[in-house]
């Protein structure tokens, strides 16, 4: 039996197809302005017997394709457990939300936290800050890591932080140090959320933001614990949904 999972996020859509416990297909596209159209295009031609949807667009998909749904929280926990069977803590930072999940020793979700209603501390925050500092998103983390010290960014609000960055640039502050400061502020927030659900090793860091090496580095320092990043951190939610579709 081939089972698929689709994760319709605010920034991207991922599809994973499993057969006999092996990933046989994985696809990704932008969510764009019409996520359902893009989701339909993404599943076009993919062969599967059952599909489960997750992500903020899951209910639209449920209506259009009569598919069952699962929250990102359960999907990420499930996907992380498949990749790291003894996982106890999952951090997922995606395009517009972030979540911390604590699991029992037997893999059940014990407690979770999500960010508040705004984009503070999410991928969107980093994306906007990279742009206002003139970096490509992929260079943002590596460049920040070259700084020797960071400049404290006091505002977590995307709008206020952007004006704080603008005034720091105007004062002639080092661009890399500002970049490092911005990463530190996102990490402080993520670490706070993780500590509220309790941090036990091993810690898995997933979602698109896990591709940023500076975030990984700072997070290890903040948690004083090694963190593990899956090879395709953005696919973990879709993978979890596919695993649940198989049950």
């Amino acid at each position, binding site marked *: 039996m081939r089972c698929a999972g689709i994760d319709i996020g605010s920034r991207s859509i991922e599809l994973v197809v499993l057969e006999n416990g092996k990933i046989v297909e994985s696809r990704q596209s932008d969510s764009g302005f019409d996520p359902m159209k893009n989701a339909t295009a993404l599943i076009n031609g993919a062969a599967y017997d059952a599909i489960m949807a997750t992500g903020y667009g899951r209910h639209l998909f449920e209506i259009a394709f009569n598919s069952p749904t*699962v*929250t990102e929280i*359960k999907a990420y926990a499930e996907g992380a457990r498949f990749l790291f069977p003894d996982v106890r803590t999952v951090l997922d930072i995606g395009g517009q939300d972030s979540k911390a999940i604590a699991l029992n020793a037997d893999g059940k979700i014990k407690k979770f936290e999500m960010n*508040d209603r705004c984009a503070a501390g999410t991928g969107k925050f980093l994306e906007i800050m990279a742009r206002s500092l003139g970096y490509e998103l992929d260079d943002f983390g590596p460049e920040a890591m070259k700084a020797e010290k960071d400049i404290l960014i006091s505002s977590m609000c995307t709008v206020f932080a952007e004006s704080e960055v603008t005034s720091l640039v105007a004062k002639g502050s080092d661009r890399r140090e500002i970049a490092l400061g911005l990463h530190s502020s996102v990490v402080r927030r993520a670490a706070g959320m993780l500590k509220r659900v309790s941090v036990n090793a091993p810690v898995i860091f997933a979602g698109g933001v896990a591709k940023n090496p500076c975030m990984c580095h700072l997070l290890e320092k903040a948690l004083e614990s090694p963190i593990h990043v899956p090879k395709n951190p953005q696919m973990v939610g879709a993978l979890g949904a596919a695993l649940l579709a198989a049950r």
Partner: protein
Amino acid sequence: MSQDYTKMWEKLGLNLEAHDALLSVLGKAYQDIYLAQKNRPQGMGYFDFVMSEVHGLRIKELLDEQAAGRKIIGAYCVFVPEEIALAAEATLVGLCSGADFAADEVEKLLPRNTCALIKSSFGFKLGKVCPYLECADMIVGENTCDGKKKSYETLNTLVKNLYVMDLPQKKSDEGKALLKSEYYRFKEAVEKLTGAAVTAESLRKSIETVNSKRKAIHRLARLRSASPAPISGLDALLANQVYFYDNPARFTDSVNKICDELEKRVENKVGVFPENTPRILLSGCPMAVPNWKLPWIIETSGAVIVGEESCVGERGTRNLTDDSGTTVDEMMEAIVERYFKVDCAIFTPNPDRLSHIAEMFETYKADGVIHYGLQFCQPYLMEAIPVEKALEAKNIPTLRIDTDYSMEDAGQLKTRVEAFVELLK
């Protein structure tokens, strides 16, 4: 609505255009949230009618009572004793505070970071859309939280008939003495308003009336311990909300009729949701009409609410007033005893509330607790953290939610609630 009430509203000084807009939003919400539910008890038809006439027929009834010489008292809190009002020939009604209204006007008078409930009560006044407030002969504010306490100073500049009741903050002898003297002061104020003296006979009768209303609600609550749940949490919440508006005797009859029907449902194992649906106990801030946001999200996310640890719910209706007294003073004492047990978060410390949450969790066979805190409601938000810790120490899964009346966080809340429900399965 069955007839045209425009003239009546005009006479009350409502802003007709704004009021029409409010009613149309309310009607739409009721349709989407209430009438869209499946397997509702037939007896809920009465509450559908009440809601469709909540600003119509019920107001007309109140105005008719006024014409016949009764007085109408509007209140914002369960600490205002209905027994005393009724005994002095006044009718007590709850005042509107469950929806955002005229936010721009409100923020000219109150800080932005005031809780949605207080802002709402001002919004209804400033927007001139609450016929209960406009027809009331006396409006009772009560010193519960700091927000309410201070906001009444401002409300006093907007209405001419505000009466402020002081309340204790500690469950001590001194606290009880304060409540007692305030209840006597309130009795005198109501007597002055109506010109009718509270007598042993009238007080005994009013205790009976209010107790009957509570007993009907207790009966409804007990039936919800059955699995599958015979009534949705939304419908049970509505009954608890209408408790504050309706004629007491008619309300009692209508709830008892629903209970008769629910008893048959329980016998035949008929429920509103399948038997294995995760069961939620809601705990926290009160939900006034039409604040149905969180219960609606919960019950459209695969769970059923089986109890409300709330002022609009069991905290408000928990205890009966002892009816064995024979003199006014004895019965006043019983009223003080009864209300002094209310475990509102304005009391410090407030250990009874935690025991009641745990007790309700057992009684209603809940699987998890969702703690509902209104943003900027310090007493409940402060208590939420130790409550969550204590419940988790008892292995009771708990989800703590801080929100307001706006729908902007609905998607996010839905994800959190769904994930919590997944965890309970």
